[in-house]
């Protein structure tokens, strides 16, 4: 077996690992800032898969899709940081478990 050759499978495996790391980050970390970083990781894992698929199948469409994803991710983060700043002004913290005013 030739390990030097990188196939689509390798890229998809790497992207899945990144996706799982991001998922774990969103679920387990308690800082909103790090949760948003993890969300970025989720989207970038998908981007990696898209680019790899496009490259290996010789399709331009998935690579164009990446631009859509990047744009959306940027908009989401801009908004998320704005909300975070507003929360920090009031609560002086960015810890997710401090946001408990809505618990039943």
């Amino acid at each position, binding site marked *: 077996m030739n390990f030097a050759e990188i196939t*689509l499978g390798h890229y*998809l495996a790497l*992207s899945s690992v990144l*996706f799982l790391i*991001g*998922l774990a980050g*969103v679920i387990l970390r308690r800082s*909103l800032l790090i*949760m*948003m970083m993890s*969300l970025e990781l*989720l*989207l970038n*894992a*998908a*981007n990696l*898969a*898209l680019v790899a*698929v*496009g490259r290996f*199948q010789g*399709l331009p*469409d*998935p690579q164009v*899709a990446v631009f*859509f*994803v990047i744009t*959306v991710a940027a*908009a*989401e983060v801009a*908004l*998320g940081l704005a*909300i*975070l700043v*507003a*929360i920090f002004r*009031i*609560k002086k913290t960015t810890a997710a478990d401090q*946001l408990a*005013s*809505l*618990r*039943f």
Partner: protein
Amino acid sequence: MSRWICPEVLLVLTGVILILADALIPAGKKGWLPRLAILLSSVLFGITVWQSGQPMPEAWANLFITDGLSSVFKPFFVLCLVGVTLISVRYPMGREETVRAEFLALPFFSTAGLCLLASARDFLAIFVALELVAISLYLLAAFHRTRVASLEAGMKLLVMGGLSTGFLVMGIAWLYAATGSTEFTRIILEQAGRPASAGLLLAIGLILTGLAFKIAAVPFHAWAPDVYEGAPTPITAFLAIASKAAGFVLLLRIFGFGAFALDSVGWIFRPIFLTMGIATVTLGTLAALPQRNLKRYLAYSGIAHAGYMLLALGTLGESGMGTVVGYLWAYLLATFPVFIFVQELERVHGSADVRHLDGLGQRDPGPALGLTLCFLSMAGLPPLLGFSAKLSVFTTLWSAGEIPGLVVGVIMAVVGLGFYLVPIRAMYWEREPDTVPAQRFPSFLVWILLLAGAAQLVLGFQPRPLVRLVERSLAPTVTGIPQEK
């Protein structure tokens, strides 16, 4: 020419006009802005209804089509917009003279995304449309930025929405890997008569997970009550009705009318849908019982309704699809008036606690009667509209032979009756509190609630208009599908 004035274009233009108008209207006359918004949204509703009757022959590179489903749901979404605009102008945002233009304009952009989504026939188009809806909603949920609860709701919605986007994009990536396309038509042709590959199943699973967040199905429902409670009430209504309906429209497109109503995929997703439906109905109903805040209460009620629709969808047959379409309209007609009332309750009493309803039956018999009819319709009591909706879910399940789903559904409908009676009991059986606020409900609210109650009754006895809508949504008038690959 006329195809360029489709609702999406007009909605975006109107949103821009509202923001520009805010800059142009002098400071003392800002009161005109809400009126302008209400007027424009109503005009748009008229145009959308008119347009949905027109054939739209052209599909733009197959990304965007007009068919039965889209022509039934575009008016649905724009009607939600009219309702949201109507109550947004009365949202007590603080000391400002009037609501800000952005609070009125953003729902227009979000609705443009919803209409786009009803017409999208490509996963990439779906992704872009869904994000247009979602990002506007994150902002709107956090809009009341002096209230921590609102910011918190916005943040939770953003994290959950981001997670769902992640699943969706990952699903799209795997779909590319498995089929080499994201276009529904191509995928149908590609996959016809072939067993589904593992990659395709994974892709659909990931996309389904992303959509399950949107419709707040168990186990992806946890965000809904918190976000509904914290967000400004007009936005809660939009989230609970339009955003939930968007998830179902996509599920209908993907699993019903579109790419994956195939035997090769159905065998694995049918049990998933039904299990999810059973869990969602059960949790939504049981968790609603102890709720005392009307917004949380409506959140759980919405989760339960989503469960019934999932059960109907899970049969993956045409009658199940039609049932979901009818159920969504019934849900809109019964729930929106309640949200309008909840906002007025918040204006008068400062919170949406169910104890503020105590003695409403004597104090304000008109609204109380309308509310009672809406709640009973949600509970599914004959002869109201909600009964027809639930009945068609049960007959669908019966004829598909899904007995476990049917049994759980019927039991939970009976249990649900208990929790829909909670506000009704408060209105008619509880004694009026000693101190009643001097402020009364405005007269338009009385009329809306009575009208809504009457609609439940009339449509319950004579569901012909809804049946016609359902038939239209199922009509195979899909235009623009190329015959060759």
